[in-house]
């Protein structure tokens, strides 16, 4: 083995070490996040854990706060942050565009329209989530069908443009329902949902999105190296033996599934899928084998932090969409201005 090769092995090892560091940081953040909030601070949490460990009865209110409010919230932030960031990293590579986010094909729009219709019809929460999930998948399926029907020169570009058109249509639908909705009861619920929140998340919500997240993650993990080839563009990837149509279809379906699942319980949380993959790329490089785990961990950590802010900076809960944009947009501008080579 020559010196250069050794150097490259060392670099790979360093990048792997970076992933473990990130995972450790996420674990610590999750612990801190369990202990932040109005009802119980760190000292109460430690006391509760101590009494639970010694078999004594804990304060029932405290244990409700811990296990039924905070745990689902922390777990939800971890899952949803990871899901949105993984989908973002996938779409950015797949469409060869670093400014693409998980809602590029209209998945968030479709899921929003579904949820808004659900709220408008006063459906139960679980039904709203189901309609929202279906809406997200339908919107992307529509964009995909249109994109495939148009035999353009660049299939990726056609797909993105079809997604933008479908997103606009869906947006019109949302606006229409907002006008028709009851302004005292339904409209605030709709507005709140459209800005994203983990306030009302339950353990059942977390468990119910797990299967879709896992199923969607499997192709991303299996195609983790092939994904790099998709960033070369269709023709080059094809000359390297890749079936780009099939690969793109599978990966779009997978990323859509996890986005729709996440959005169906949390509402629309923007910016994570756009910004986090850039940060992950700066940390571990563009190789999807490391980019995927790094994006997921960073996405989880980011949403944990933002959710902690959401429940602690003001008397009322601040919707997450407002915070992710308020933190994400300036950061993104800094990224652009500082000329960091996360993309060329």
């Amino acid at each position, binding site marked *: 083995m*020559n010196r*250069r*090769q050794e*150097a*490259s092995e060392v*670099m790979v090892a360093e990048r792997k070490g970076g992933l473990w560091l990130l995972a450790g940081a996420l674990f610590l953040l999750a612990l801190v996040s369990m202990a932040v909030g109005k009802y119980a601070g760190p000292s109460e949490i430690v006391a509760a854990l101590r009494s639970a460990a010694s078999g004594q009865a804990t304060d029932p209110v405290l244990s409700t706060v811990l296990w039924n409010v905070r745990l689902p919230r922390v777990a939800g932030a971890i899952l949803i942050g990871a899901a949105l960031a993984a989908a973002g990293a996938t779409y950015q*590579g797949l469409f*060869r*565009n*670093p400014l693409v986010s998980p809602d590029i094909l209209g998945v968030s729009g479709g899921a929003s329209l579904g949820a808004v219709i659900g709220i408008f019809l006063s459906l139960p929460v679980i039904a709203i989530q189901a309609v929202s999930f279906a809406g997200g998948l339908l919107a992307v399926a529509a964009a995909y069908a249109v994109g495939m029907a148009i*035999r353009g020169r660049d299939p990726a570009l056609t797909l993105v443009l079809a997604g933008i058109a479908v997103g606009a249509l869906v947006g019109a639908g949302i606006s229409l329902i907002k006008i028709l909705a009851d302004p005292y009861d339904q409209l605030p619920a709709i507005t709140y949902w459209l800005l994203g929140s983990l306030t009302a998340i339950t353990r059942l919500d977390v468990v119910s999105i797990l299967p879709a997240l896992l199923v969607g993650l499997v192709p991303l993990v*299996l*195609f*983790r*190296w*092939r994904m*790099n*080839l998709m*960033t*070369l563009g269709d*023709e*080059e990837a*094809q*000359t*390297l*033996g*890749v*079936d780009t149509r099939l690969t793109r279809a599978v990966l779009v379906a997978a990323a859509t599934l996890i986005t729709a699942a996440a959005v169906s319980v949390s509402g629309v949380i923007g910016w994570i899928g756009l910004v986090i993959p850039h940060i992950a*790329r700066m940390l571990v*490089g*563009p*190789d999807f*084998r490391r980019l995927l785990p790094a994006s997921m961990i960073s996405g989880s950590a980011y949403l944990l932090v933002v959710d902690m802010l959401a429940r602690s900076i003001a008397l009322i809960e601040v919707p997450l969409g407002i915070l992710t944009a308020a933190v994400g947009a300036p950061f993104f501008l800094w990224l652009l201005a500082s000329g960091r*080579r*996360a*993309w*060329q």
Partner: protein
Amino acid sequence: MTLEIRGLAFGYGERTVGADISLSLATGEVLALLGPNGAGKTTLFKTVLGLLPVKAGDILLDCKPLSAWSRRQRAKRIAYVPQAHAALFPFTVLEVVLMGRAPHLAPFSSPGARDRRIAMEALAGLGMAHLATRPYTEISGGERQMALIARALTQEPSILVMDEPTANLDYGNQMRVLSHIRSLAERRLSVVLSTHNPDHAFLVADRVALLHASKLIALGSPREVLTAAALKQLYDIDVVIGSIDGSKARLCAPRFAAPLP
């Protein structure tokens, strides 16, 4: 014989760009394709690479129609070297070169130590080993072209298809790329390349094909084919062809209507 094209018509969708093309490529042969802008060189290459369907006639790879090969099997025989382009994401040079291993790997697997060794050997063979860990986005155009050649070699193909391998390179890099193409041919690789520079065809090509007005108008050794008359027909430019004392290479010099300075 590795590649044979018989009575080929090619083009996009409904449009036929070229027709009645017949040529063959022998093992270890360098074939240069010349033609004015829009003559269909790139379209012909895309058809040979299986990116566009054959409209009429046959393309035979090892005596078997191109369409009978799977995409992966084809990628093990024919490798494509695109024009040096800017990559979107800052992959390292080694990561880019490793992508050439794709046709040899199962869909769900990643390159291993053996693939890494093949990629490093390809880089070292082109004098590029020292750039392995550099981001592909930060090296020069000439180095990118070399990295893409290394990627193609990592596919372990028998045929290289190169789309204007000297375009956008400075004079030194042009000559280095051409000299590497010659040494690839010495190693029994067949190369098809397109170029806009007749001098380059003189330097590397065993045979030259001229594509003009959707037809193959000449095919043969550079000396036979690249005549002043042929270049006049191709580019509508008057040239003189000769050689300079001390160099074996034949060169092509233009004759302008206006007096030279």
